[in-house]
């Protein structure tokens, strides 16, 4: 079965090429679709529909310049024009992933964490405590009891974060429910693989409970601040020339274009769309 993935593009979104590339390598047929193709414009009717896809990716970028809050105007635009299609998409078991700016859009749309199945803004991704945009690699621990399909089979991984607004904030009651329902899929960790305990830079933004990614109760909607497409390929990892040298001493020559650990997340998405994991 061909799995079709829609990767959002346009209006300042900027990770569409590499996200589509990673999905393609994972076996999906990925299209970069401009938001206006879904919503239509003043002059043109919509030319694309979510019906044609099994995976919908809100990829990273600075949609609408991130003015008025990261991901806010993207969420407003989609809620305004695409609400019904999104509901249908979720209703028939479509997979939704939001990465960085896309995660910010998902929480502003209320698609995450969807605690009672209703779309409401229960969590926010606020300015980093350090006050700055940060591009750095972080260690992540994967919560094993989470229903998240995208992180299946992963225990730990390193990924880059690249954001200025990634601090997950929620009311204590919401946080408690997130934890109780196992909706925290990823946490920022130290080198020892244990939660960062809020310490910068292991926790790069001050996220409550070190939360880096969450999912909904079905495990089919997933959002994360780190960039899995930032490690779709082995040679994106900062230590790849070291691990290559270690391999060379064993007489091996690793392929610089071999998949990175982030690619597992896209492979899982495709497998889930095929019904191979659930």
């Amino acid at each position, binding site marked *: 079965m061909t799995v079709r993935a829609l990767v959002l593009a346009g209006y300042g979104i900027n990770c569409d090429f590499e996200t589509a590339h990673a999905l393609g390598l994972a076996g999906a047929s990925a299209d970069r679709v401009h938001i206006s193709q879904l919503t239509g414009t003043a002059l043109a009717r919509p030319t694309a529909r979510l019906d044609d896809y099994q995976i919908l990716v809100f990829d990273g970028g600075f949609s609408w*310049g991130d003015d008025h809050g990261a991901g806010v105007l993207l969420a407003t635009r989609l809620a305004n024009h695409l609400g019904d299609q999104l509901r249908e998409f979720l209703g028939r078991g479509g997979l939704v992933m939001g990465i960085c700016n896309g995660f910010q859009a998902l929480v502003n749309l209320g698609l995450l964490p969807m605690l009672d199945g209703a779309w409401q803004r229960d969590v926010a991704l606020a300015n980093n405590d350090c006050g700055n945009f940060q591009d750095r690699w972080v260690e992540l621990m994967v919560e094993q009891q989470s229903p998240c399909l995208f992180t299946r089979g992963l225990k730990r991984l390193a990924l880059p974060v690249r954001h200025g607004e990634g601090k997950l904030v929620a009311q204590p009651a919401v946080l408690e429910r997130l934890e109780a329902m196992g909706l925290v899929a990823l946490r920022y960790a130290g080198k020892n693989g244990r939660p960062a305990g809020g310490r910068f830079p292991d926790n790069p933004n001050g996220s409550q409970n070190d939360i880096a990614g969450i999912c909904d109760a079905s495990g089919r909607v997933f959002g994360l601040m780190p960039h899995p497409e930032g490690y779709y390929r082995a040679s994106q990892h900062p230590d790849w020339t*070291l691990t290559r040298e270690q391999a060379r001493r064993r007489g091996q020559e690793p392929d610089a274009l071999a998949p990175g650990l982030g690619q597992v997340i896209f492979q899982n998405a495709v497998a889930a769309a095929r019904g191979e994991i659930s």
Partner: protein
Amino acid sequence: MAQRLEIGLRPDLHDPAGRGLKHKARAYLGLGVERARVLRVLTLDTALEAADLEKVRTRIFTNPVTEISSFSPLAGQVLPGFHFALWVGLKPGVRDNEAATACEAMADVLGRPLKPSDAAYYSRLYLIEAPRLGRQQAELICSELLANPIIQTWRVISRQEWDPQAGVGIILPRVELRHQPTVLTLAIPSDAELLRLSAERNLFLNPADVPVIRAYFHDPAVLAQRQALGLNEPTDVELEYVSQGRSDHCNHNTFNGRFHYRDLASGQQEVVDNLFKSCIKAPTERLAAERGWVVSVLWDNAGVARLDQAHNYVITAETHNSPSNMEAYGGAITGIVGVYRDPMGTGLGSKLVAGLWGFCVGPRDYAGELKPALHPRRLLDGIIEGVRDGGNKSGIPTALGSLQFDERYLGKCLVFVGALGVMPREVAGQPSHLKKTSPGELIFMCGGRVGADGIHGVTASSAGYSENTPAGHVQIGDPYTQKKMHDFLLEARDQGLIRFITDNGGGGLSSSIGESARLSPGAEVDLAKVPLKYPGLDPWQIWVSESQERMTVAVAPADSQAFLALADKHAVEATVIGRFTGDGKLKLTHGDDLCAYVDVEFLEKGFPQWQFQALWSPPELRGLSEPVVAPPADLSGLLLDLVDSPNLCSREWISRQYDHEVQGTSLIKPFVGRGRDIPSEAAVLLPVLTGKAGLAMAQVLLTDYGDIDTYHMVTASVEEGYRRVVAVGGDPAQVGGVDNFCWPSIIHDPTDNPDGPYKAAQLVRACWGLRDACLALGIPLLSGKDSMYVDGRLKGRHGLVRRVSGPPTMMFSATAPVPDLKRVQTLEPKLPGDLVYVLGATKDELGGSSLYGLWGQTGLKVPQTGLAQSLATCAAVSQALDRGLAASVCVLSRGGLAYALARMSLASDLGLSLDLDGLAGAEGLSPMQRLFSESTGRFALTVAPGRAAELEALLAGVPFARLGQVTKERRLKAQAGGVKVLDLSIPEMRRAFTRRFGKMV
């Protein structure tokens, strides 16, 4: 009725912006602020009903989890005990990105377009608890931290003055020109009159050009043609056009000038006719003819070279110094966003894949008497943030950069910005690097709109900074609008809709259309069709405005509908403003009024070449000599001082804020090593994800060598650029270069610029160095720019004003494809037990070194670059990388061997144990000279012990020595003559490396 919406974080949440203000008030101004909160303010000047206002407040502008908002003042809820409210907003007409997106979102949510009269204005309100602050100090926080009077305005409201109902009131920075656009005819009966007009209108005309301009307009044939159409003496539109086109910025009058060079020691005399032609164009043309990988150079907005069989890469770099010097954030963001338009406007357009930056500023802790436009600390903060927002929001990895402190940059800072793109070799069946305008094609202006901002930017950058420099040319770049345009144009290109494309940068439409009209040749433009930000602009302003984020595109009439449909899809404004013709004339109208009619070739012919005296005093004649020092046996302390010095310590805090990994192309990041904190030798990207070729890029800035001899400064810079891209795996046979000259004025004036002839000689020698090095190493110059007036007049004590000239500066950027990714290598040793080699000769060359710099000394013995030797050494390293022999490759540069060893050890988190006695070429040198000499052409590399013989076999003809090995013990140890000369632990080196700026990450 206008409403003011205030939005703030919930009072119980930490406010990073407030903390930042508190910290900077203390650190920068010594002012105590106990608490600070920041509110966003959106003033809505609309006819919206209450219900609609509530709808946009809740649905768009307020995050229910983290924020509160109100149309009444929030101060009482957010910080009830505040002592001052500081409101900061933009001046009328300054680009307000947040307001633009707010209007877009409101229209969408309300389901109807806003009225043309509806407007929004974005501002901020800072509430501070600071019981010991007076009004004057609160004003200081505004003027020195929060606002720049060039683009912003502020109000300080004390607690006593605060009206809890009205708050800061309603402030509407509307642009109201109330002006009927007019075209003036300006009679130029005499040279004196034209010069007077030039001064009055800030045209900066060169006196030598004045007779030529007058002769053209008074030529009987020209006059007859003009009179037939109702024109006579030139119009203001025409004179402004001439001023733009003849500015040094557009015309490179200096590099195209005639230099009368004389060596004051030897008496040698030489006339150099045209530095550009003899030192840049001729060598590049020769090399391009020999090398099939050079695709397009010397004419377009950027150079084009081959990346792999199916793709070319595009590169250019420029500077944005004058605007950044006055408004750091605005200047820098406009600079980076602006340079990105050059690859977009090269050939039929390329996809942007990387940005580069380089900042030269005064010392961050400068405490002297001179008063630069902005203190270097504040200047640097603004520049860093400008490039951050411009780069990150463009979705282009900011791959590499550099930062240099020097007191001489107090006069004018330098902001280098570079851009790389890729394009398929063919698009829609056509070679992508070619383009042409033809009669009948429509002229589209795409992207942003035109306002009064950015007028006379080109002419102002061709003058030094003074208190009277017009500030109207400072702008705020809008990466969001440009990103949409970038995506739009690439799709239009791939559909074959673009015949010609160029950007609107310096000179605006006058430059983009003026130059592209020479190809067809001829163009007609109706300036009344140009979309404006607000009414009331005169035609000459529309013609020369440098409003940002605009491209000029030629489209065949038959493709016009398809082009507009794509523009609609991408939410980009595209407007037909005229058409290309074949009559050789540039004809401008404003509605029915003819306002310009000139020959398109007029600016290119008949103008006199600029003349310069160039007097060279060799360094000996200037009395330079080596400092006399008696170093201790153990040099560890010297190395720590070096590692801690402002120009060699960590810059992590800058590149951390820059997204250097977006697009998924990263292979070598700006930092390497286990701590990810040591600057890499060069960046490497995989620009085409489906391809297999890497692209290496490096930057070099060796300003201090120029204080001895700019010839050697430039040969060393070019050679180091070459060496850096080779070190990371670049193909030595395909290295391209980009030269960016930033020079103080070389125009001699006995009182105003008495050493102009010496600075001119420095420029000549620098160009000779560039020519010689490029020819020897086989580096064609793919692109380059010059900025010739790096001077400032700064107030000192007692009302004294001093001229401060920047040091002669040349940033060299090098690029090279990496044909096989297995060649990519980083600088840090990988495994204990590996052997450490140094390649290249170490000589007594500490002149201009970082070590001497620690003592404020220059010295005499500047590194003299052996170009042929470097070629052989780099070939050997390239072979070692091909065979997987080199487990790490480090470039020896500033700080010499010692600093390279420190970086290797810090990056690997491993120790080194070395004996310096065998160092090649170093016979008779002291341990200090061995460690800190900056002789060029050298590498340090490590190799597995079992493969040492294989490596050494490659090194025939290369001076080299095996110095020792990589150790598990985390110490850098070296001895010479049996005596310990270095013994440092990694933690103490890292403390020194990060002490100065480490906390700013």
